[in-house]
């Protein structure tokens, strides 16, 4: 592997696992720090500042983790599809690794959105599960994540796994809006009751709590994904010289 003397500012400089590995390692603590700080601020606002809701009482406080989880589940899917597409188009291994690294975190966020949604639904609508457009589409999103993970797990050849997953992710990302609107259509025609998550305009403090928690979730997700992609790099490049050198120097951390 050639190493240049000084990093020219090149878009593809960090697309090499070798250069990205230490960079990610330096970034992770910052994102963890941001996540922790934002979580503390967010929780403070959520529980000590935001007032009791007029209609839902205290049960609405689930919104401070439900909405961030749901936003992240959708955002991460799009980012995952983006990196998968990059990997497919430019044949950069690291892009594909990013997509693979995002999937588990995205799936967990989706699960959290569903779980917290169910626990919020019970006191609010009287049922743990309703077949409303948002919840149902979120469930299908979970299936899309799991399908991506399952497909990549079933293929032994890493490059084929990268590319096949990319095709699936791209199809998924096209389909998610279609699925959402289909389910919305299906839902409004079959059920009279329309469920509105946000309902009337939110108190400013509630909005702030939600936004800050969303940022916290975002910072956490970045940290988790960077950590996972470093592990993926090690798994795939374990025979490379640079890995062995770093390991010998005990500088893999």
């Amino acid at each position, binding site marked *: 592997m050639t190493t240049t003397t000084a990093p020219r500012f090149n878009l593809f400089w960090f697309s090499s696992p070798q250069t990205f590995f230490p960079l990610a390692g330096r970034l992770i603590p910052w994102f963890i720090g941001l996540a922790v700080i934002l979580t503390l601020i967010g929780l403070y606002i959520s*529980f000590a500042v935001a007032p009791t809701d007029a209609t839902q*009482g*205290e049960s609405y406080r689930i919104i401070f983790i439900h909405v961030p989880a749901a936003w992240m589940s959708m955002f991460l899917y799009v980012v995952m599809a983006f990196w998968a597409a990059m990997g497919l188009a430019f044949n950069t291994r690291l892009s594909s690794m990013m997509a693979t690294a995002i999937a588990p975190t995205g799936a*967990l966020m989706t699960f959290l959105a569903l779980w917290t949604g169910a626990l919020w639904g019970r006191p609010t609508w009287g049922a743990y599960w309703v077949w409303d457009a948002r919840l149902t589409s979120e469930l299908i999103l979970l299936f899309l994540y799991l399908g991506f993970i399952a497909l990549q797990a079933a293929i032994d050849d890493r490059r084929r796994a990268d590319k096949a997953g990319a095709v699936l992710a791209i199809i998924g990302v096209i389909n998610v809006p279609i699925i959402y609107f289909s389910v919305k259509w299906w839902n409004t025609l079959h059920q009279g009751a329309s469920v509105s998550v946000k309902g009337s305009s939110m108190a400013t403090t509630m909005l702030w709590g939600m936004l800050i928690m969303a940022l916290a979730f975002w910072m956490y997700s970045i940290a*988790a994904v960077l950590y*996972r992609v470093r592990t993926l790099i*090690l798994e795939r490049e*374990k*025979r490379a010289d640079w890995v062995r050198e770093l390991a010998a120097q005990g500088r893999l951390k």
Partner: protein
Amino acid sequence: MTWGGWDAFWSMGGYGLYVWGSYAMVVAVVAIEIWQLKSRRRAADNEVKRESARARSTA
């Protein structure tokens, strides 16, 4: 926001189970994810060590 004491805080106006059940799951998922991240990393580190040993022995 003024809570009428810790009891009121934990009971969340009767919705304690739902609210804390949600937050607890978030904590659990984060804990599980961190554990999964670390254990997979440990396995990778061991793999790298094994590869280095193999390379040295055949060098």
